[in-house]
């Protein structure tokens, strides 16, 4: 079917992918640069990775971010999956319209608005800002992404499977856990991974909702980046890229195993 694929198509695809990947590739290569000057190539070396191991502030921040991402992604996956079930399976209920509005709005709403409003809530409730407030904030933001991913899977789900199980005498809860849940699991896993990476990545909302003692990795990186490019930052960025790439590869392998399920588009799609 290559018949329709013109030279123009090839060129735009090649240029598009080059535009998307070159900056990342350059960053990764320069993280192995021996020279102290970021722009001069001084041969391959792991010295910035070694320097990173001694940077306890950076490692602490990474640990904080990792814990927040794990907790908030898990909570967001539970809440988001429930919301997706509500939107697809619960039919009409009072306040359905505002409900779906609350789910879709955070997907596009500027982060400064979300961050500011959550901060003011925590101040009004007189809660000390830090680890837990940031976890709550990330849960709220990322659950909406999980909902959309799980929802698009549920739309194409064949509910007669669950009904068949119940016709054969399976109680509703068991039918859901034994039939429905395993079948929609790939979408739920994709949702968890997206929530995890979004949380790991967030700078703006965390800046509002965190406090002293809970500096996240993006906040730490940001304060370094504002001072200029440092080879050490290249190294930590490369590690983060490797972690995310690994997560995505696992996710796509999982999706492939369930090739029958049509959630390829849901894998990375925020829509």
């Amino acid at each position, binding site marked *: 079917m290559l018949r329709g694929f*013109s030279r123009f198509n090839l060129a735009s695809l090649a240029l*598009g992918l080059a535009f998307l990947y070159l900056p990342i590739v350059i960053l990764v290569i320069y993280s192995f640069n021996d020279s102290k000057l970021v722009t001069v190539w001084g041969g391959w070396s792991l010295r910035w990775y070694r320097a990173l191991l001694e940077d306890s502030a950076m490692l602490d921040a990474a640990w904080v971010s990792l814990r927040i991402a794990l907790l908030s992604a898990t909570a967001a996956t539970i809440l988001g999956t*429930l919301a997706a079930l*509500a*939107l697809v399976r*619960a039919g009409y209920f009072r306040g359905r319209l505002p409900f779906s509005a*609350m789910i879709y709005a955070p997907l596009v709403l500027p982060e*400064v608005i979300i961050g500011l409003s959550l901060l003011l*809530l925590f101040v009004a409730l007189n809660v000390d800002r830090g680890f837990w407030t940031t976890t709550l904030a990330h849960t709220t933001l990322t659950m909406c992404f999980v909902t959309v991913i799980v929802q698009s899977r549920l739309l194409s789900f064949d509910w007669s499977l669950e009904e068949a199980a119940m016709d054969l005498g399976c109680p509703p809860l068991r039918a859901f856990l034994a039939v429905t849940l395993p079948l929609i699991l790939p979408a739920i896993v994709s949702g968890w991974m997206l929530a995890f990476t979004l949380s790991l990545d967030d700078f*703006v909302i965390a800046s509002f909702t965190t406090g002293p003692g809970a500096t996240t990795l993006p906040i730490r990186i940001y304060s370094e980046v504002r001072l200029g490019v440092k080879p050490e930052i290249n190294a930590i960025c490369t590690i983060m890229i490797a972690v995310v790439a690994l997560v995505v590869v696992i996710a796509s392998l999982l999706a492939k195993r369930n090739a029958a399920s049509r959630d390829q588009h849901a894998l990375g799609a925020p829509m």
Partner: protein
Amino acid sequence: MPQTGLTQTRWGRRLVIALPYLWLALFFILPFLIVLKLSLSQTAMAQPPYLPVLDLAAGWQGLKDFIGALSFENYRFLFSDMLYVGAYLRSLSIALVSTVLLALLGLPVAYAVARAPRRWQPLLITAVILPFWTAFLIRIYAWINILQREGLLNDLLMALRIIDQPVAWLASDTAVYIGIVYSYLPFMVLPVYAALEKMDESLLEAAADLGCPRWKTFWLVTLPLALPGIFAGALLCFIPIVGEFVIPDLLGGSQSVMIGQTLWTEFFSNKDWPVASALAVMLFALLLIPIVIYQRLQTRELEGR
């Protein structure tokens, strides 16, 4: 008669609706109401740093005093100062120009993916989306590496003898546009691809059989079919770009600020929470119409209504 599944039993249904509903009401709607309230308050040298504070202990009189003390002063202030009006206008124009650039760039890429052999398409579209998964901050940072004065772009252009002096790419609008287009490209390509993927191949064959040249087929057949996707992608990009903070802060110059940065400065540097809140409310008001249209699209897409 179909059996009632777990989500249709009385308690199952209550659970799946109530839990996320309460969560979002508490952590999304309530905070927004607080922002609204604060935008009508005044700064004060106190903890919390604003007035009035609702005194529940004072009962009815307290509520009356509270409402009486609210004012639109902050909004009047925003409109009287060209600094803020200018920042809003700049943000809107930057978002508009970037969205057009994104459409111009995203369409050919999405079209190419949709025209590729079917079994390659999932891989190619994943390749386009993958950078979205790598941290946003890192991708902007990667551009600082390239665009800085002694960076690779200047080295390359000087080696090619296109320029003979290093150009200051950073701290300019060009850098902001590059950063925005780079970060948001997947959001444009994906919906356009989704629209084109459904396209009926035979339409193109029919056009070719009737002697229509390729470019004309693209203009008359492909583009109209891609338009809903472009529209969805444009909303998906435009709305968050207006409130963008990280990209203009890291790549842009200090003379030309976007509204997200103004809000940031008011909040973190000037500690003027009421004005920051008023800025947030105005930003939301500006984006209300595109957000409503976007929600309609989402509802149609995901709920089939």
